[in-house]
């Protein structure tokens, strides 16, 4: 599974979305399950899937999936272009 596919599955599973709802532009404000508990669940999932421990300020400041991609790319995760 590519990193892009892993990310998609992670976001869909964590926030209980339908696959069609995923996009890199998906914003926190548009997802009702992206609340404080969602942030916790996201951090747990990111660590399990990508092995990266989101810093508290990173996790709480994420406004979109794109923001998460920026962080993961910085940590060496390769996403399909």
């Amino acid at each position, binding site marked *: 599974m590519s990193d892009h596919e892993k990310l998609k599955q992670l976001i869909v*599973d964590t926030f*209980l979305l339908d696959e069609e709802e995923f996009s890199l532009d998906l914003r926190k404000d548009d997802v009702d399950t992206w609340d*404080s*508990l969602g942030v916790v669940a996201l*951090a*747990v999932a990111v*660590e399990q899937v990508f092995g990266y421990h989101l810093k*508290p300020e990173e*996790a709480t400041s994420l406004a979109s999936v794109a923001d998460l991609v920026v962080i993961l790319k910085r940590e060496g995760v390769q996403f399909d272009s």
Partner: protein
Amino acid sequence: MENGLADEVLAQRASEDGSGLHSVETLPMVDLGRLSRDAVAWVSPSVRTRLAQYLTCPVLPTGEFASGCSTLVVAGGGQRIDFAKIWRAEHEDVRLVVVPTLWGSGADASPIAVQNLNSGGKRIFMGPQYLPNVRVIVPDLAANLPESLARAGAGDTWAHALEGFTSPLANETLRRNLARLMNRMLERGIRRHPDWFDFSAEACAGQAQSSVGLVHGIAHVLEPSSAWGHAELCRRLLWPVFRYNSSQSSKFQANLREYGIDPGDVEEVLRALYEPADYEVLIPSMVERWRSILRDPSTRTNCTPVRPGSLEFFRHEVVVSE
């Protein structure tokens, strides 16, 4: 998870619900006579005779009070105690003395009260106003507790302690405290001993500082339509969820070891509480309600990710027969 994120989430929750770290004074049985002066009591019928020698106040039907009395003594399980806590919050000048007759919920030492609604749902009350003033442990009540209730209560206590410990919201201090608690529970074993009243209270207080996880997420969703209550469900779900978490991350058991707990010892206890035939009965409900289980707040703070596809583990990878 780093403490900073956990602290922020917990602070937000604390400001929302007023919960926090509080304590309840624990007094010995010999004080019960003194405590029940100028009081009325609500007492579970199953222990009324046994407690009669200690209580000096009139016993009224639960919900009734005598004006002019300053103290309410409540002896019973979590539901009766929670009812009293909710009642007392509306009568702030009444001192609340609780005598737990069951362990598991930790209601006797918790700032949380749960009201079961006629619709099958639950309403949760949180805040220091829901803490009893005093708790009294009567050792004799432990010795005479039916075995089935002792096992269910131990299951609820283990669920609180283990899920509170493994919660991504737990900090190092809490983990150390809950690790010590779990080792005491391992040492005591599943038996009818008054230590379990304190184990239950400490476990409940511990998970209130972090969160619970998938055991509670499943139990919360299945309870309204299950023949089993919360504690019985927790008892039956502990081992399957332990196995699930172990399969998802090597850190799950490594964390236990890091704090001086042998995961093998824990698994042995949880396996002893598990009953394959009963688990098999739960599976259809889990399948039907899996999406609701995923959305339960407790599931969302489980120590390993729980996904739509995780259901297959519970359907096919948990041993369902000996």
